[in-house]
């Protein structure tokens, strides 16, 4: 009798210390995982894209990894979002909420009908923040393609390395989850979100392409790395209030390059890092604060830039320090100019109009999408933004009249029919008139590419 009680007690203790069995954990956690399908509409194409998403709250909010959307697309080119539960062939409509600059996540919100079937990932958060340990066993969920109803399957591995890139990132021995999907420990606690840029590549055995180079396959559907939970959970509240993700903090120090340890040593910067500013952008907060090109940034708000590996990562660190702040907030930068250290107080500004926000219009008969010239174009072209005129050829239809005349994507259109293009509206009107005039046989554009200009003659007939 005594023995029997003891035995029972032993079993009970065991059960309390051990997590539920994996099938049970699996079934519960599957409710935090979805596939998201949407269409990307361009001037001449309509293309479906499938991405994986993680449910973050009870309002049906889902986050997608940054690579889910091509950065050249504007939000209004993204259509018909639908959310599929694993193993389901029917999608439920969703709306696109925008992208958060700091995390890079795209946010989507699904219709009410299936919200009750979804479980936010926060439910599985660990009681305490614990970083995954070396060799710890981890697992996650992969999803098959749409033709297989996004059937879920198990992935698992062990932690090989944890590194700051600058976010704390765990790298596993092999694939642990679909990119954008959660990763769990053996107890079923959420320990991270699979990164999108860690698809492993394989040389396909004895396969060569036509030119004789080995065929390399990249596994884009599964990831072997994940950002740990502390890089995810605190940021889930960053749901964009508009599709462009504004407000966006802006510093205006461009072309940031890290210094390597040898240079740091030479500059007497032991055990810290620094970044060189290649350009200070026109009218930017950095310029207003007195920053100069070739200043070396040493510290933010008195805190030296950390020495991260590889060297390049410190640039991402600095970018994130700007992005996590709001426009209008101050940021004190310690810079090295020549041999002198200086403190600059920058009032962060609002990011100038983005390419994705720029007005654009497609002219099918000409085969051209004209896009408003924005600040970023001036930076890229190395010209003054103030007073810049013209429009950008955002899309040139292959073998269309503009393409045959020699126009290329990203060319800068400065004159149309000998008249200087001052604004986007003027260009759109002019091109609209040309397009509408069916008697028109041709027109002429003055375009600039790489600092050189050319007169192009577009034949419409």
């Amino acid at each position: 009798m005594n023995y029997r009680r003891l035995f029972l007690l032993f079993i009970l203790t065991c059960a309390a210390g051990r997590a539920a069995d994996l099938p049970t954990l699996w079934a519960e956690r599957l409710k935090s995982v979805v596939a998201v399908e949407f269409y990307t509409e361009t001037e001449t194409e309509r293309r479906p894209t499938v991405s994986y998403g993680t449910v973050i709250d009870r309002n049906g909010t889902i986050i997608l990894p940054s690579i889910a959307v091509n950065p050249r697309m504007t939000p209004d080119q993204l259509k018909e979002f639908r959310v599929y539960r694993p193993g389901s062939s029917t999608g439920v409509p969703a709306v696109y909420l925008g992208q958060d600059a700091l995390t890079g996540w795209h946010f989507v919100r699904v219709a009410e009908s299936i919200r009750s079937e979804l479980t936010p990932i926060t439910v599985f958060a660990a009681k305490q923040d614990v970083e995954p340990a070396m060799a710890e066993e981890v697992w996650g969920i992969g999803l098959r393609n749409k033709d297989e109803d996004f059937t879920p399957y198990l992935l698992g591995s062990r932690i090989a390395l944890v590194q700051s890139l600058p976010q704390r990132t765990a790298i596993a021995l092999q694939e642990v989850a679909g990119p954008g999907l959660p990763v769990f420990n053996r107890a079923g606690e959420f320990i991270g979100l699979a990164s999108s840029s860690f698809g492993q590549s394989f040389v396909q055995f004895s396969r060569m392409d036509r030119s004789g180079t080995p065929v390399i396959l990249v596994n884009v559907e599964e990831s072997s790395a994940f950002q740990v939970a502390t890089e995810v959970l605190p940021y889930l509240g960053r749901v964009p209030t508009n599709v462009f993700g504004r407000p966006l903090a802006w510093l205006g120090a461009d072309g940031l390059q890290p210094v390597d340890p040898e240079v740091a040593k030479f500059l007497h910067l032991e055990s810290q890092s620094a970044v060189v500013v290649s350009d200070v952008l026109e009218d930017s907060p950095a310029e207003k604060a007195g920053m100069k090109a070739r200043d070396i940034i040493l510290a933010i708000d008195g805190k030296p830039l950390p020495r991260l590996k590889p060297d390049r990562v410190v640039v991402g660190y600095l970018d994130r320090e700007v992005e996590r702040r709001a426009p209008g907030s101050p940021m004190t930068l310690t810079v090295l100019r020549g041999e002198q250290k200086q403190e600059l107080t920058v009032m962060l500004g609002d990011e100038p109009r983005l390419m994705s926000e720029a007005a654009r219009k497609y002219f099918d008969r000409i085969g051209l999408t004209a896009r408003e010239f924005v600040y970023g174009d001036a930076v890229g072209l190395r010209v003054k933004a103030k007073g810049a005129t013209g429009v950008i050829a955002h899309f040139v239809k292959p073998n269309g009249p503009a393409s045959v005349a020699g126009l290329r994507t990203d060319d800068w259109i400065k004159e149309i029919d000998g008249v200087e293009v001052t604004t986007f509206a003027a260009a759109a009107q002019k091109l609209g008139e040309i397009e509408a005039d069916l008697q028109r046989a041709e027109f002429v554009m003055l375009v600039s590419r790489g600092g050189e200009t050319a007169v192009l003659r577009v034949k419409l007939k």
Partner: protein
Amino acid sequence: MLKFAVLGLAFAVSAQAAMTKGFNQLFDAVVRIDVREVAFEDGAKRFSASIGSGVILSADGLILTNAHVASPRAVELSVTLASLERVSAKLVGWDHWTDLAVLQLDQAEIKRRGLKFTHAEFGDSNRLFVGQTVYAVGTPFGLTRTATRGIISNNNRYFEDSNGVNGYETGAFNTWLQTDAAINPGNSGGPLVTEDGKVIGISSRGYLGANNLGFAIPASTAMRVVQALVHDGVITRSYIGIVPSALQDLESFYALALNTGVLVGSVDPGSPAARVGLRAGDILLAINGAKVDGRFPEQLPPIQNLIASAPIGSPITLTIKRGPQTSDYTVVTEKLESRVGEEWVLEKWGLSVRKVSRTFARVNQLDDSTGVLVIGVQPGFPADVAGLSRGDIITKINQQPVASLEMIKGIHATYVAKPEPVLVEAQRNHQVSLYVLKP
């Protein structure tokens, strides 16, 4: 009928006779040139050997060849005469724009050894007709004194090449003779001659992979270049910064009569033309009052040459049509510079550099011509270890702007004498990075 045939035969015989005499004299004036060149590539000084052809032009041993055969990089020039005797020569001058160079045989050596040679004469390249028989004479693949025969395929061919002469620009100021006489590697610098042995061109290049598409610099251009190189050792040209382009069929758009004006295709930023307000899309009607006609590409080199021939620093009046307005602009010319600056190697650093020229700075949207371009690094040497690579532009060393090649040579010399870490600031695609060169 018979009489006619006999006459024809007589003509053929006399042509043959003329050819024999004149042609033989020419044949004896053609030389083989063996060149040893230094190159500052891959962070080291390297020597290479090549073979070209040339033609003797005067009793004092002036030899005309291609700029891509003999350039200032040549450290040793050895000429094989028709008598198979070898004589050393020195470079008198070169001009990559026309791909021509002039050498002179070592007079003292000629005299000492009592060597004899003949010299060739120029013919009139302006009177060539398409279909006329011509001969290319030279040293293809080292086969000395080879003559090949063909015809003039085109006597006014236009092509410009921004790095056609060992990386230097060529072809902007002259048109070319095109021939189907076989021109092979090694023919370069040899003469293209008429049947009577008159030099009407200098064989320069062929199309790679094509059959019998050879090109020669016309004698009319060569004569001018030789004269200037012998006189000054260099050819200086003026620059205003417009890139002309052919109007082709745009006349109606610009409301111009046919064969009037040339289109300003592009204006170099910061150039004299840009400073007076010229813009791409302008029509250039006249230069110093003389009307220009740039309807077709072949017509552009003479227009370019007209501008280039103006004295440096002199004013040129350009008549410009913009929209319905026609007005005169006066630009003051600058000296034309190549994109390719002087090269050197800093051997202890394993670093090959080329001075940034004004033109290079313009093309690459640099603020000014400060700096040197890295053209090569030697693996394992300090520059490579520090992370510098080909294409970087070194702008500062130890916080001092690199204003000249001499400045960087000086710091290198200090390093050689006393090796201590050197801080280098360089940019690539306008991204500035720092490097430390360590002993």
